[in-house]
């Protein structure tokens, strides 16, 4: 009976769940409830992904008002794929969070944590599913406000300044997007994405529309932490509670990448953005600089969380690189990397959080000799780390492979070479941690308090690790979904309009 309402449920469920969660006074109860809600959303997202692979696009008119007068939810393969990643990671992180936040967050703030997490999830799902440019802004702000709260929940005082900086940058970004949407509305009179696409296609080149696009791209670049607008991200991820870092690193910036894809491919059309405005060159250069600069910075960090945060910015570079190749193969590699990166960064941040849970520190000194004391956690870190590097049989290899192939397809030898060199830097920063964990003796060998992480933290961590291996070997599901998504996005915007 509810099948036709599935496109809206991943948003509505957590949105209703959040206030209910607030009313549940007990921490345990709130945790159970939030996990169930998130798990149910994940189930629906999977159903949506399978349905869209089968049938194409699902459109849902809210309030029964047909678009463009009402707001439309529009789920296609591309956003169903990202939606599954977001809801899936959210569920795993919630399972993991129970013990992690017990230690990191003040007891009477636990329900607030779960409420904020659900709001963040609702916001992210809304950004992904919506077919309305202004509605996107509203959900962006829900997720952002919830994120600022989540980051500031950590007990470290540096989390406060990190959250404030994030808030200022995030609001500037959102306001830029608002300006851009306003300019688009001014020239077209509509906010529905498909309607926008059809009406923008009528203009050849227009200074107002160009400026609008530029503002949207800059605003989104702030949100996705594209170099050089990434400075808010490392402190935020470093000082946030571990569960929050694991969730945000895998989802928040990836959703922003998706928003960029949506605006470039669905609304303006790749032709307009890349050939008329020459955005591909700018994005390509920024992506490569991001990969090298941030990987270098990552190699010298003493805090492992900061190191992973910089690594995230570098990985975002790979995604943008894929997009800026302006081919279906490149876009497909970028989308695939969104999926795979969520798997590996989620696992890595969870492992770091488990170490923080036992040792109370995220400094690299805490990792001395951990290979023997927390073997399962460090094994998870190792496998996910290999995936970041791009070793064969891991998910990371698959996306790098497709990225290199996409570059070679265009005879961009240099770019392919740079991608491979970037991976070498990943070997350096991941290797540093592995070296001290396995080949150094612990600073205090008599300390017996440091033992393996609790089961409830290990299970979600290892699910992600196994997924890393699984999607490194059997690529049929992830690759076919990403491939369908990129083909779908690469149709000229006018054709998409015809689907309705």
């Amino acid at each position, binding site marked *: 009976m*509810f099948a036709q*309402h599935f496109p*809206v449920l991943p948003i*509505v469920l957590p*949105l*209703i769940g*959040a*206030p*209910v969660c*607030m*009313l549940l006074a007990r921490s345990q109860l709130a945790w159970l409830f939030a996990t169930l809600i998130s798990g149910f959303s994940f189930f629906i997202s999977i159903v949506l992904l399978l349905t869209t692979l089968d049938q194409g696009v699902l459109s*849902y*008119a*809210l*309030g*029964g*008002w047909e678009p*463009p*007068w*009402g*707001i439309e939810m529009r789920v296609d393969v591309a956003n169903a794929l990202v939606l599954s990643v977001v809801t899936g990671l959210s569920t795993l992180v919630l399972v993991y969070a129970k013990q992690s936040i017990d230690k990191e967050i003040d007891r009477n*703030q636990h329900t*607030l*944590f779960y*409420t*904020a997490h659900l*709001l963040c999830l*609702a*916001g992210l799902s*809304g950004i992904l599913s919506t077919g309305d440019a*202004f*509605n996107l802004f*509203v*959900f962006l*702000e*829900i997720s952002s*406000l*919830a994120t*600022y*709260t989540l980051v*500031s*929940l950590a007990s470290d005082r540096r989390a406060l300044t990190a959250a404030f900086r994030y808030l200022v940058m995030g609001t500037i970004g959102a306001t830029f997007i608002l*300006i851009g949407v306003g*300019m688009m*509305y*001014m*020239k*077209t*009179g*509509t*906010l529905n994405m498909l309607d926008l696409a059809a*009406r923008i296609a009528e203009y050849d080149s*227009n*200074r*107002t*529309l*160009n*400026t609008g696009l*530029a*503002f949207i791209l800059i605003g989104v670049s702030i949100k996705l932490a594209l170099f050089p607008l990434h400075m808010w991200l490392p402190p935020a991820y470093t000082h946030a509670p571990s569960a929050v870092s694991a969730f945000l690193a895998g989802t928040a910036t990836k959703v922003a990448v998706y928003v960029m894809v949506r605006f470039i491919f669905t609304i303006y059309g790749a032709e307009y953005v890349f050939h008329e405005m020459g955005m591909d060159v700018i994005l390509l250069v920024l992506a490569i600089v991001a990969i090298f600069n941030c990987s270098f910075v990552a190699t010298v960090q003493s805090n492992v969380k900061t190191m992973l945060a910089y690594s995230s910015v570098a990985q975002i570079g790979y995604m943008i690189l894929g997009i800026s190749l302006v081919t279906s193969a490149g876009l497909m590699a970028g989308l695939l990397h969104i999926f795979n990166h969520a798997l590996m960064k989620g696992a890595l941040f969870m492992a770091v959080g488990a170490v923080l849970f036992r040792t109370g520190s995220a400094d690299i000194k805490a990792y001395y000799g951990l290979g023997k004391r927390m073997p399962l956690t460090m094994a998870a870190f190792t496998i996910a780390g290999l995936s970041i590097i791009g070793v064969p049989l891991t998910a990371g290899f698959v996306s790098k492979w497709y990225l290199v192939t996409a570059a070679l397809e265009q005879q961009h030898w240099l770019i392919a070479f740079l991608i491979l060199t970037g991976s070498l830097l990943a070997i350096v920063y991941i290797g540093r941690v592995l070296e001290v964990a396995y080949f150094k003796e612990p600073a205090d060998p008599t300390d017996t308090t440091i033992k393996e992480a609790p089961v409830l933290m290990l299970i979600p961590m290892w699910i992600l690790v196994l997924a890393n291996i699984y999607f490194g070997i059997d690529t049929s599901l992830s690759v076919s979904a990403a491939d369908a998504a990129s083909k779908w996005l690469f149709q000229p915007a006018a054709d998409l309009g015809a689907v309705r």
Partner: protein
Amino acid sequence: MAELIDLVLLGMLAITALRIIFLKDLFAVVMLFGIYSFLSALIFVNLDAVDVAFTEAAVGAGIATVLMLGTLALTGRKEKANSHTALLPLLVVIVTGAALIYGTLDMPPFGDPENPANQHVAPRYIEESPQEVGLPNMVTSVLASYRAFDTLGETAVVFAAAIGVLSLLGLPKQSQATIESGLKSHLVLRVVAKLIIPLILVFALYVQFHGDYGPGGGFQAGVIAAAAIILYALVFGLPLATQVIQPKLLKILASMGVLIYAATGVAGLFFGGNFLDYNVLASDPVAGQHIGIIVIEFGIGVTVFAAILSIFYGFASQAERANIQ
């Protein structure tokens, strides 16, 4: 004539903004921001956006300014002299501004009825909504029915803000009014406040339920009702106010408002429509729209009232704490 007033007001805004840049006294900066906000409310009236003006005056000029003043009370009112040069920010701003000016060059002329924005989606709202939704105030129709999902999101944003402030500042404990607080010596103020607070609450109810016909609605009503309690807390002290409206109750109310809104949407599902479809709520679509809009506006009002008040409580409890120490 309208254009001339617009120009004068915009000029005043520009002067205010420039003054804010160079002032070092933060108290004056915040007051000027209040003025800025009121001036923009006037511009909104002049540009026919009465609902927006109402909200800007109540939310932007009212609540935002009160919160900023509350923050200043805790952080000090002087900005320290800034040693580093402001060359880079200036450059960024000039480049951004130049881009925007470049963008204006192809904009449709200001106020032209032939503009795309006035030709495509909006005409349906103007021509059909009085029949389809049955309300004279088109802004309410669009807000609460055509784009009800945006408004649900907006309610969630207010709720999220309340969660954020709650987690950062906490709520005051409900305490006996033993601590000296409030303005005990201001007899005139106390008498007038007692007289006015009920009036403000009645006005809030009027705004809440008159929003279908004139400017107003849940947001403005919630803010006005919260303002009445804030006035009470300022004059009679926070401990007394927490006895009138308990912090715990606020948590429940803030959640309930969102739930009322969302439940209206879910009701649409059960009656066979889409999420937030009010047509199916009654046998007659227009009557259904009316029921739906009244209920969701009520939900908005409750959430906004509770959220704004708990945000104020959060700041006030910090101030109280600072006073005791």
